[in-house]
């Protein structure tokens, strides 16, 4: 086989090899490509922002010795029992079904160890997860799979899901390979079928009806539980205003880099806006309502490092949520599975076939043998370690900016490296006072 570069062959930028493979796959199967992970295309992101550390005009805090607090209260607008988290980094909703029971338990263990919350998903609450999670957010989804009022009352908060960043406007999918007897039982479905779940809730549409739905949820839980509303980032400015109007205590905004266990490739890559573009829209909406920091904003979609945490918070988030990164902490895409990834046509760093149920790391699977590879205790330790590192990194940056609390980071602590990021994040291009595109 010749080396195309050596031979001077030219690849089309429009019809590159991935595009050619996609067309040929479509012609072969007649069905669109479904995969996991989130958007893989390059979009402006937190890497395009930098923090302005203190020097003469501002005073830094001493690393390790001088306090930089990290706690956050979520949901104190209307709820009798708001969540008090030790760190502002939470685990996003991922279903039992998409993930193994062991993986769900590990996420709960890890979150609990560092005093933060984890979240159920489109498939109900497992006893393992409830048992190991000090703070558990219960998702309320269009499918209502496994929806049980006792679980609602056992939860620490309720997240009404309108959409997610990987597929705003889309419903759920779980392919037959992952509908084990237990998953099927929890969802009241026949085992082994390709499950499709609805994109709209079955008993309300729009913010006017959501207002009544939130009232019902509050009545059922006697006004004790914080109620979140989660949206995929698209028309974020309007959506946040409407979520607040409908009565949300917390708004969760998931950017297009947010992950999924199974969604059409075309949906993942072509719908939604980057996390970086969504945050300023959300903050503007809350600011205009006089409710920034009163209705809390949780941001997700591509959070990987403490720098991402610090930058998201500087842009105005009260907390962030991680999904894909938490799976990676558990062992997803680890090089030690290189041979097994190769056997299913993938490689470490590329594996995204979460829909397929053959995950060598035992995370996105319902195969008992694969799932048994993940020890929930060890997995929990890894997740806790990772969350600690994110927190320490964010504190390091916040101290450098002179902040005794992460929440005191602000947009003025940021500059942008590119014009695109400056316009989206609404912070000046580094070294200038220019914020392109001002005037929403």
């Amino acid at each position: 086989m010749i080396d195309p570069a050596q031979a001077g062959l030219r690849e089309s930028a429009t019809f590159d090899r991935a595009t050619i493979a996609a067309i040929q796959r479509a012609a072969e199967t007649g069905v669109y490509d479904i995969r996991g992970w989130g958007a893989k295309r390059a979009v402006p992101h937190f890497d395009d922002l930098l923090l302005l550390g203190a020097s003469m005009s501002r005073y830094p805090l001493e690393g390790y010795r001088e306090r930089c607090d990290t706690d956050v209260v979520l949901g104190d607008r209307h709820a009798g029992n708001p969540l008090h988290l030790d760190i502002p980094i939470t685990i996003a909703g991922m279903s039992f079904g998409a993930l193994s029971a062991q993986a769900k338990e590990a996420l709960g263990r890890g979150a609990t160890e560092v005093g933060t919350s984890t979240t159920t998903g489109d498939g109900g609450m497992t006893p393992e997860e409830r048992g190991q999670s000090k703070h558990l957010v219960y998702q309320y989804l269009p499918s209502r799979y496994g929806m049980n009022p006792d679980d609602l009352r056992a939860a620490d908060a309720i997240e009404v899901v309108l959409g997610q960043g990987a597929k705003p406007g889309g419903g759920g999918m779980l392919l037959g390979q992952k509908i084990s007897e237990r998953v099927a039982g929890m969802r009241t479905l026949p085992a082994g079928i390709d499950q499709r779940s609805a994109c709209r809730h079955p008993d309300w549409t729009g913010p006017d009806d959501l207002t009544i739905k939130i009232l019902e949820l509050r009545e059922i839980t006697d006004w004790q539980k914080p109620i979140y509303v989660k949206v995929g980032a698209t028309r974020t400015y309007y959506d946040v205003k409407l979520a607040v109007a409908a009565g949300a205590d917390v708004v969760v905004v998931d950017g297009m880099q947010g992950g999924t266990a199974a969604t059409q490739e075309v949906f993942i890559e072509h719908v939604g806006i980057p996390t970086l573009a969504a945050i300023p829209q959300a903050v503007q909406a809350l600011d205009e309502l006089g409710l920034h920091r009163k209705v809390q904003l949780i941001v997700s979609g591509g959070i990987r490092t403490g720098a991402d945490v610090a930058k998201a918070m500087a842009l105005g988030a009260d907390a962030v949520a991680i999904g894909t990164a938490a799976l990676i902490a558990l062992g997803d895409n680890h090089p030690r599975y290189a041979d097994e990834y190769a056997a299913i046509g993938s490689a470490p760093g590329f594996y995204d076939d979460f829909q397929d149920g053959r995950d060598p790391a035992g995370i996105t699977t319902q195969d008992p043998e694969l799932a048994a590879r993940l020890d929930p205790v060890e997995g929990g330790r890894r997740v806790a370690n990772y969350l600690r590192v994110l927190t320490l990194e964010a504190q390091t940056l916040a101290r450098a900016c002179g902040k005794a609390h992460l929440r005191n980071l602000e947009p003025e602590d940021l500059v942008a490296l590119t014009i695109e990021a400056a316009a989206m994040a609404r912070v000046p291009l580094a070294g200038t006072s220019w914020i392109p595109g001002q005037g929403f």
Partner: protein
Amino acid sequence: MVALNGSSVQELMKVDLASTSVRELNAELHAPTARRYEVHNPRGAEAIAVGLRHAIEVEIHGPAGYYCAGMNMLADVVVHGSVGTGVAENMMSGSVRVRGDASQSAGATGHGGLLVVEGSASMRCGISMKGIDIVVGGDVGPMSAFMAQAGRLVVCGDAGDGLGDSIYEARLYVRGRVGSPGADCVEKEMRDEHVAELGQLLADAGLPHDPGEFRRFGSARRLYHFAAHNSAAY
């Protein structure tokens, strides 16, 4: 709220929503001090008697709004009037009886228990039902039993278009006309066990019809797997 006798657990409590808030009513029903409740002047209010989890009886005298008896467990709720969207949504157990008509999404996503609508139910009755039994004395509107997963829906009148679209394993019994069955919903044979279960459901609902007058609909199970030849149905 007026208790009608003096013992610690009363037999009957009357609640007038003209002078008591829905919040006060629901708080009482969540920690009941009586076995039976009469609710007056509901005037279409939303979220009446939601989240019940005790074996109590609640009678609502007049029309109720959205999500009446939502997520009911164990309780028996009767509405002497019409109900708004999502009556008995996600019911787990117990029973809800509506003497009048029900609006959209009656019994949506219900996991168990019995919902009886003596009048008619409008669109999306039994959407995503997961084990609930629903008996409707009159008609049901379009897109009823959409994505119905489990349980039984009995329609003594007519069913609107798109009945049982994308249905899973729920069983549907219709006495009158069916506008059109939805994708993957087909008429099926009424075997003895179906006549028997339908007869029981009609008896439970207190309706006099002969099970022999009904037709059964269910899933053809052709959409259970994503496949190219189904693309027109998606």
